[in-house]
């Protein structure tokens, strides 16, 4: 009998025996314990991890490319063309090679005249042939689908790591280009 009584007591404790209000308080207390453990663990791991992100990101497209990692975004500031007009000036000067990192289908539908297609997904397969033709000082402008897209930054980073020295990102990308009525090429 005693063991059964203990089992009853144990079970009542688990289901929160007693008046409903106490059961509710008990449930809330346990939820807060779990949530506190989760939040503490999250902040600790995020602070220690190399993949950790700042507590506040850059999510205003008016300011620049949206990203969770504001530290990296700040480093990129010197390597960005932050307006379609600036990109057009570079385009008109005629020295830079525009690199479209969007998908092949999007490139085929329309791109900046003279641009070459180097989709991020095909980068590894194409980069050898692409880089072999270019001197390290070749000015390169990467672009993708605007300020909600980071592929152009990723490809720019990869090209820099391949030894190309003059790579910048046109952050407004193809949408910013066509919004200003600039010329568009189709294959």
């Amino acid at each position, binding site marked *: 009998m005693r063991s059964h009584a203990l089992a009853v007591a144990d*079970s009542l404790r688990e289901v929160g025996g007693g008046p409903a209000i106490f059961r509710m308080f008990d449930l809330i207390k346990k939820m807060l314990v779990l949530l506190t453990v989760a*939040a503490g663990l999250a902040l600790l791991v995020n602070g220690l991890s190399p993949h950790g992100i700042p507590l506040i990101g850059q999510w205003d497209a008016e300011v620049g490319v949206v990203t969770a990692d504001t530290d990296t975004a700040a480093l990129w500031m010197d390597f960005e063309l932050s307006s379609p007009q600036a990109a057009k000036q570079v385009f008109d000067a005629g020295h830079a090679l525009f690199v479209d990192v969007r998908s092949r289908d999007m490139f085929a539908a329309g791109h900046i005249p003279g641009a070459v297609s180097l989709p991020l997904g095909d980068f590894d397969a194409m980069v050898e042939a692409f880089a072999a033709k270019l001197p390290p000082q070749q000015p390169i402008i990467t672009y993708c689908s605007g300020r909600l897209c980071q592929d152009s930054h990723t490809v720019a980073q990869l090209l820099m790591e391949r030894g190309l020295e003059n790579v910048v990102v046109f952050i407004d990308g193809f949408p910013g280009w066509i919004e200003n009525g600039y010329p568009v090429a189709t294959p």
Partner: protein
Amino acid sequence: MDTLSRHPDAGWWANGWVDLALRWLLGGLFVLASVHKIMDPAEFAKIIFGYDLFPAVAINLIAIILPYIELTAGLALISGVYPRAAAAILSGLLLGFILAISINAWRGHVFDCGCFASGEAALWQGTPGWMLGRNSFLLFIAWSISVYRGQRKILVRFG
């Protein structure tokens, strides 16, 4: 069947093994769902941004903390630490997911669910209707665990 299993408030199944199976199923799914978010919080933050529902100041915090809530509650369910509280937390999360998916489906906003993996090849991605059905089913499981009054199997107690 003992006295506790016949408690009038017991779940309709009144079976500790069924409760255990549901706890492990739901807990395992949420642990699985948390992994890719924890591995790449920056990518998960972009997915949250894509929902277009949250203030900019909260997006990174959600991306950092939400996966660990899923992980902690999932592990709690599996191990039997505060299972009712864990199920209640996951019920809250699932209600939030259902609300977010419904709002975006209603306004025709295209978004990446980010539920179990990111990108076009995401497992269980599906249409908004499929996502709502799936989350409603998981919410039913979480509710079932919350209201179960029988004796649970494999339980860790404190105090």
